[in-house]
């Protein structure tokens, strides 16, 4: 079978206008969008894109397929598809975006577990179903494309990714920082009437991150 697809091209050094480039790729049933990109890269054009594990764990191959965020490695290839970079982050090259703004937005909040000294054994501690569900986040950043108001250049507007990261710490039994207040300073109030965010690998963002942080759910 052959699929005609369009792939976003952007080369900041070439002087060419960014835009969609058509490709025709041979494929078999079961082939993925990632496989199509690898085939294009190997046999047609050195398009740049990120990937790593080929099975939804590394989170590197998130792009937008027909306007929706998808992991290229788990999306079956279909004729007529359009592939673009994640819309909410700065485009660096072809399908590659700058991930730094998403991660750097959390820097003021010390988004790590701060222990006075390293653990010398595994402590007794209670994990929660919320924390376990939140740890499935593979940091692909696809959720940011489902948020109607996230802006990478506005430090007062967090997105679903940030609330997931803060909620992971909120539900960590050894974390002592007020993550609810931090979420407020990232304007989580605006989520109350929205709740449109979705995760590509099934993290229940609204239930395990947004609502608990909005309501100041008790910590474990």
């Amino acid at each position, binding site marked *: 079978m052959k699929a005609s697809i369009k792939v976003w091209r952007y*080369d*900041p*050094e*070439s002087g060419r206008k960014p835009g969609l480039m058509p490709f025709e790729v041979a494929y*078999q*049933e*079961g*082939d*993925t969008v990632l*496989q199509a990109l690898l085939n294009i*890269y*190997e046999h047609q054009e*050195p398009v*740049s894109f*990120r*990937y*790593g*594990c*080929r*099975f939804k*764990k*590394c*989170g*590197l191959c998130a792009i937008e397929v027909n306007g929706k965020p998808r992991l290229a*490695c*788990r999306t079956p290839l279909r004729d007529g598809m359009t592939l673009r970079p994640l819309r909410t982050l700065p485009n*660096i*090259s*072809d399908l*590659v975006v*700058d*991930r730094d703004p998403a991660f750097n937005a*959390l*820097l003021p909040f*010390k*988004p*790590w*577990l*701060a*222990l006075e000294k*390293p*653990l*010398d*054994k*595994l402590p*007794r*501690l*209670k*994990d929660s179903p919320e*924390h*376990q569900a939140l*740890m*499935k*986040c*593979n*940091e692909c950043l696809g959720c940011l494309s489902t948020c109607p108001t996230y802006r990478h250049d506005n430090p007062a507007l967090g997105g679903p990714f940030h609330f997931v*990261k803060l909620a992971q*710490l909120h539900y*960590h*039994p050894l974390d002592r920082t007020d993550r609810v207040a931090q979420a407020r300073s990232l304007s989580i109030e605006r989520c109350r009437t929205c709740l449109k965010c979705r995760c590509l690998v099934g993290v229940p963002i609204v239930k395990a991150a947004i609502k608990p942080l909005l309501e100041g759910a008790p910590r474990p």
Partner: protein
Amino acid sequence: MEIKSYDVIVIGGSGAGIAAAASAARAGARVAVLSKEPIGCGNTRIAFGGFSGVEMTPDDSSEKLFQDIVACGQGLGNASLTRDFAREAKQGLAVVETMGHIFRRDDEGDVKGTVIGQAGGHRFHRNISSPANGVAVGGVLHNAALGAGVDILEEVLAFHLLGRDRVQGVMALSLRDGRLTALTAGAVILATGGAGWLYYPHTDCVRPSTGDGFALALAAGAELMGMEFMQFLPFAVTHPASFVGIFLGEPSSTGPEGRLVNGKGEVVMTNMMPKTRSQVASAIALEISRGNSTEHGGILLDLSPNLKTPEGRKKVEDLKNVGLLEQARGIYGEAAYNCEEPWDVAPTAHFSTGGVRIDGECRSTVPGLYAAGEVAGGVHGADRLGGTALTEVFLFGWKAGKAAAAEALSMTPPQANSGEQEEQARQAAALFGRKGKNRPISLVRRLQKVMWDKVGAVRTEEGLRQALADIDVIQDDSRDLNIRPGHVFNPEVAEALELDLMLGTARTMALSALERRESRGGHIRLDHPDRNDSEWLKNVIVWKEGDALRLRLEKVQALEDLS
């Protein structure tokens, strides 16, 4: 060219690298971590997630763990490193939780009872895991590095170690802007992982696993050991093309009644649960090499007999509960997920068991250079027990960081030779927009095919000699590269630099495999099918003198002295 100076530089941003960086920073060192990918996107993240501890059940002891590792490694490990590992495994687990991860607990919040699993070759229940597998571990690494106050240099490729007789720094390319930087340091830690990607698509490893650290260490004058031992997992996907090599399971997940059936319908193996990964993988590779494969080039793993016994049904339920059948479901469908239909499977390259020779403080044989995790050799030997790698990664990463910081802080910071830096930068800069004949990717794919066909799960002298000749031809062709212009995220330049490292690593693997004229662990020779303890209780040690690879054999301590 920009020059930056640190006390400790860590190459690799996955489990071992971040553990090393955090521990070096805690010891007071100024630390940079260089990662080819965003932090936390290495094999630690995609691991299914077993971490071996010790004394998790009353009758176990570090001595017994030591014996199990030696038995699985068939006597070829460095006994002193294996002992350190067995004694300190619990410390490795504590490092993982120090970084913010939480292992699966029981209802009381303790790590005991049913949360502890048993993997093939372990005589006791020792393996603990995360409810979200490796993804949960990978997901804390970026912030753990930030919390440790480490400089994070992401999408930066280390392609050369600076210094003569002593490693004094690293030459690096930033993928994002094509910038070349010389970084100097009192100590450099390799945490680059293994060489699984040399077998793409027949690997379950991530794309950056190109074995860079082996070639970097060799070029700096360090010794490698056991490079013939690549661990192949027995059960991986054979089709469609997008998923070839993806992990489906291992011997301990076949249940009491699981069986292997070849393309002619003959039962090849039963009772796989107690067998090691290499025993089963080599049996499958042998069947395939005899022409007894299915139309997809694999053989059939039939778990359906488990559904007929209570014990078997329980095993299948357990596998579903821990998520081990998700790949089978996603790729082969519901009937495969329910174990009603057999899976078409073939071996997949999983873990580099050998690597950079280190001492108990992770020092290589070259001053200033350390190695930890999969890039290091010696803990395991000829084969590796399931769950030991992830613990090793964090335990030895932590040790390496501490030792490297102590060394770097006790010395005068090095002034790397500017002539060497400029020559390296000049060569790398010449790659951008080079108008030659061969695209790096086509040479990479040729090399990967050579490795799978001739240095794969079964080997022969003829094949290995041919592989070495093929590698030389690819090396020659790599002098005439065609690379697109542009400095921003130019994947072809990175690939060209990686290719050079991949060739160095591949040659070492093929040469070591040619030398070992017996079969043991992950190294199976069709022309020398038996394990030969009277001749081969020896390590193959490889190093470089000038441009030439040198090799010698070193006897290991006799097995009876190790028990």
